């Protein structure tokens, strides 16, 4: 069944047994493995004859490689192979080489790879390699890099920004003219904002375990990945061989947050050494490599202007956003970064005239990439603070101010986005009610504040990454054996968010079975159909819809058989708790056990198994990548984050005692999983806002380790309350929408707005750690903070 399948066989909400029931038999399918240590992650695979691989990275931000001397390393006992860019000249995109040959462009560029019998020998070998560089002048500041005549980062003669991704969307509804809208505005809010660099830092580093079979000419690759078909595709491009040579297996993945939708150099190097040595090869990145080379969140520089009517309504908006892209990404998936950053700028308000420009600029720093809430965390920070300041300047209550322009169902944005289900206004009102805003807003002590932030995000994406028929993003198969046993063949990528569990639950719900009766086949590129990956908040919505259709396709065949026997219409039947039943008037007493129905169905079909197939896509014309209007996602989600905090104005320390999060995710499939995603989002957003910052000096990271890169611990987390009871989405599986990615975006602005209320400081930059807050108080000396200081005396 495809996207346009006849939905008459779909489970009706009144018959849900698993979906969103507090007391249901909904279980976590990975639970036992994960609490016992039996769950195997890519770095847990090993063999007695296994070798390991490691890489020597560039210590300088820009320079020519003059010479590489590996002779001393080659002589070291236990070294089994050495590769430089010359021996392994693989380039997977125009700008990215697996091992750099001519010119290094950032600290951390991989230059030489070593294969050895163990980690100690490999590390010792790296010490013995001598690489001579001719240093070249680097550029680190995107504002410098964007100037004419600036240092050429790539060294190919490209201009640092015109060649790379740019997205410029200009448009309006009802023939409105943006200049006229600005001219007639009662108030124009202008702001400049800046965000910093952070890293995903999943606790499991990227790991590859690769085996090569010379007779079959086939690799088996266990990869910590959220895009296994991407791995397979790029390996085939890199090695210039058909995809059928690469069996990529996605084992348990220890968190990704965007970092594992790549195809890291380590994977190619492990595969090449496995081919050359005929031994299995393991390559696990160190924590430092993870920070240096796995493309963290883009720093942004944002200028924005919004025009407001007398009542505060947003009339028009102009932005110019500069993304610090680091040294790479001119020619691959980084188009998404600029394109999405424009979509977020058009959200979550009705804005009838827009002029939104995003440019991704190259610098000689670590590459920027996708990270949880891809560019939304940065853009929405600026958006929301700008709304807050505009509301204040116009003397309008900030909740009222947001409600006046808030998106609603049915709105068509000039950016092309079509809003279907939308409970944004409800989330704003719920947050205000929870915080007792009306009652408390005028009675805060100096140093005390409440902040709100409203944001929107996509639920699914238009991009299937690879070229697929109809832009299909997931193909799933459900197989029912003669004994009633059900197998689900699905590659929907689980990175810890619970995709395996939700897919099994969807099949069990549709077929009226318990979850332990549905067996998920070990996901891999050979064992199940295409799934484009865990990115763009697409897994539950797009993958879940495909899996649901596969289950319903199998169900339909069984119901058709039973209905014919009973002489009733098949779609009046369903399967509830292991029984086929009929809802047709006068036939309510009919029932047949599941196993009997399956056996009978197969018998009538000459013994053929019952196999259901399902697929799903959200198709667009790809115009969004050209900056043209296009409806990027099949649905959108809306959130309001709110917090109450106190600021110690003497030290700049903040104490958040309550965080409230209202999220319109449609119908929650599993309440605990949604709650967990929201708690994780608040954790992640709090880290971004107040704790984490990758510091660079001369392009080199100063704190690429867990000691100096401060992450939120169990002691730092505030008390959290969540709400997510909003109407189901018409198209999501069982009415579900996104949760857990875009939900990181409102955290930083909510905290910033609360700090602003508590102290009066005008915030335009992240992070908001005590030092920055203290500095802003000292520099700005706002009345409120001064009053709070006085009260402390």
């Amino acid at each position, binding site marked *: 069944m495809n996207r346009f399948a006849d939905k008459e066989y779909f489970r009706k909400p009144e018959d849900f047994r698993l979906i969103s029931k507090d007391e249901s038999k909904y279980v*976590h399918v*990975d*639970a*036992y*493995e*994960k*609490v*016992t*240590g*039996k*769950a*195997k*992650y890519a*770095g*847990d695979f*090993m063999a007695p004859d296994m070798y390991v691989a490691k890489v020597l990275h560039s210590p300088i931000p820009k320079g020519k490689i003059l010479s590489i001397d590996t002779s001393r390393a080659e002589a070291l006992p236990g070294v089994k192979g050495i590769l430089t860019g010359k021996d392994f000249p693989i380039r997977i995109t125009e700008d990215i080489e697996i091992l750099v040959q001519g010119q290094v462009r950032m600290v951390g560029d991989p230059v030489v790879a070593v294969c050895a019998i163990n*980690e100690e020998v490999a590390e010792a070998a790296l010490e013995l390699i001598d690489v001579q560089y001719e240093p070249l002048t680097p550029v680190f500041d995107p504002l410098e890099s964007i100037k004419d005549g600036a240092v050429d980062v790539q060294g190919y003669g490209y201009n640092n920004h015109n060649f790379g991704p740019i997205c410029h969307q200009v448009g309006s509804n009802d023939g409105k003219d943006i200049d006229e809208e600005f001219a007639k505005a009662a108030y124009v809010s202008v702001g400049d904002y800046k965000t910093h660099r952070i890293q*995903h*830092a*999943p*606790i*499991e*580093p990227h790991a590859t375990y690769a085996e090569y079979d010379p007779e079959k000419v086939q690799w088996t690759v266990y990869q910590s990945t959220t895009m296994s078909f991407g791995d397979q595709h790029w390996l085939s491009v890199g090695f210039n061989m058909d995809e059928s040579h690469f069996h990529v297996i996605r084992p*348990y*993945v*220890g*968190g990704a*947050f965007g970092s594992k939708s790549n195809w890291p150099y380590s994977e190619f190097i492990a595969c090449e050494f496995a081919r050359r040595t005929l031994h299995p090869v393991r390559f*696990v990145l*160190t*924590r430092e490599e993870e920070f240096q080379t796995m493309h963290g969140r883009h720093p942004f520089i944002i200028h924005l202007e919004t025009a407001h009517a007398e009542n505060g309504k947003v009339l028009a908006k102009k932005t110019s956003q500069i993304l610090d892209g680091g040294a790479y990404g001119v020619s691959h998936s980084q188009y998404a970064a600029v394109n999405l950053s424009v979509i977020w700028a058009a959200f979550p308000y009705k804005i009838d005239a827009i002029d939104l420009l995003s440019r991704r600029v190259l610098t000689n720093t670590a590459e920027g990439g996708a990270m949880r809430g891809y560019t939304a965390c940065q853009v929405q920070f600026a958006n929301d603070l700008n709304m807050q300041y505009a509301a204040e300047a116009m003397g309008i209550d900030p909740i009222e101010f947001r409600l006046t322009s808030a998106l609603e169902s049915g709105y068509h944005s000039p950016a092309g986005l079509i809003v279907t289900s939308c409970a944004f206004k409800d989330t704003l009102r719920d947050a205000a009610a929870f915080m007792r805003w009306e009652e408390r807003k005028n009675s805060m002590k100096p140093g005390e504040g409440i902040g709100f932030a409203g944001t929107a995000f996509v639920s699914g994406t238009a991009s299937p990454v690879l070229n697929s028929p109809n832009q299909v993003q997931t193909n799933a198969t459900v197989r029912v054996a003669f004994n009633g046993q059900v197998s689900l063949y699905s590659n929907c990528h689980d*990175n*810890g*968010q*619970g995709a395996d569990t939700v897919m099994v639950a969807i099949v069990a719900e549709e077929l009226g079975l318990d979850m332990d009766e549905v067996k998920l086949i070990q996901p891999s590129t050979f064992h199940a159909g295409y799934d484009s990956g865990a990115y763009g908040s697409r897994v539950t919505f797009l993958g879940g819809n495909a899996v649901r259709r596969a289950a319903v396709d199998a169900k339909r065949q069984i119901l058709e058989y039973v209905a014919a026997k009973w002489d009733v219409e098949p779609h009046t039947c369903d399967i509830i708790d292991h029984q086929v039943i009929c809802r047709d008037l006068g036939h309510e007493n009919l029932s047949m056990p599941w196993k009997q129905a399956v056996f009978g169905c197969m018998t009538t079909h000459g013994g053929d198994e019952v196999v259901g197939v399902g697929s799903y896509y959200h198709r667009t014309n790809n115009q969004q990548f050209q900056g043209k209007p296009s409806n990027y996602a099949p649905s959108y989600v809306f959130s309001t984050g709110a917090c109450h905090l106190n600021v110690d104005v003497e030290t700049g320390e903040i104490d958040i005692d309550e965080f409230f999060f209202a999220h319109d995710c449609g119908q929650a499939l599993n309440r*605990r*999983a949604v*709650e*967990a995603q929201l*708690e*994780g*989002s*608040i*954790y*992640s957003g709090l880290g971004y806002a107040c704790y984490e910052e990758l510091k660079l000096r001369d392009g080199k990271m100063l704190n690429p*380790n*867990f*000691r100096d890169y401060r*992450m939120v*611990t*169990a*002691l730092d*987390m505030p008390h*959290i309350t969540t709400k997510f009871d909003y109407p189901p989405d018409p198209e999501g599986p069982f009415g579900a929408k996104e949760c857990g990615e875009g939900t990181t975006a409102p955290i930083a602005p909510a905290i910033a707005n609360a700090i602003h209320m508590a102290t009066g400081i005008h915030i335009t930059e992240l992070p908001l750690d005590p030092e920055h807050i203290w500095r802003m108080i000292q520099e700005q000396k706002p009345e409120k903070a001064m009053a709070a200081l006085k009260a402390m005396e």
Partner: protein
Amino acid sequence: MKKILTFTLNGEKTEVICEPNRSLLDLLRDDLGLTGTKKGCEEAECGACTVLLDGRPVNSCATLAVECEGHDVVTIEGIARNGELHPIQKQFIEKWAFQCGYCTPGMIMSAKALLDHNPHPTETEIREAIEGNLCRCTGYAKIVEAIAAAAAEMNWEAENA
């Protein structure tokens, strides 16, 4: 120089040949195949590699294997008994106290060390006990809940034994 190391591992006397500079983590994972103990940083900062050494939680990445000579080591593989999960494991399942699960073994070992010494911890004591265990997924709320529930279950069992 390699030496023979003798220690108790998950209740069993174990003898293994070991390099003097081998970390307990690498010994467990690569030499003994006990990959339930995870490697997250190798710099004693993330807690993914937490095991119990004579009942105390230690970062096995920062513990030399040879230091365990004659001592008692317990890993995540050693806390279920006769096929029955430890109450902390059960409550981690019950409360959905994990997502990717990579921090989970270390988290459970830190929780076990806490509850073995302090059967009635306050919420703050629970949070302090797992402060050295970084989790990038959950926001810790469900982990804290699970540990508190496990404490209650263990106390109930002790009182009704």
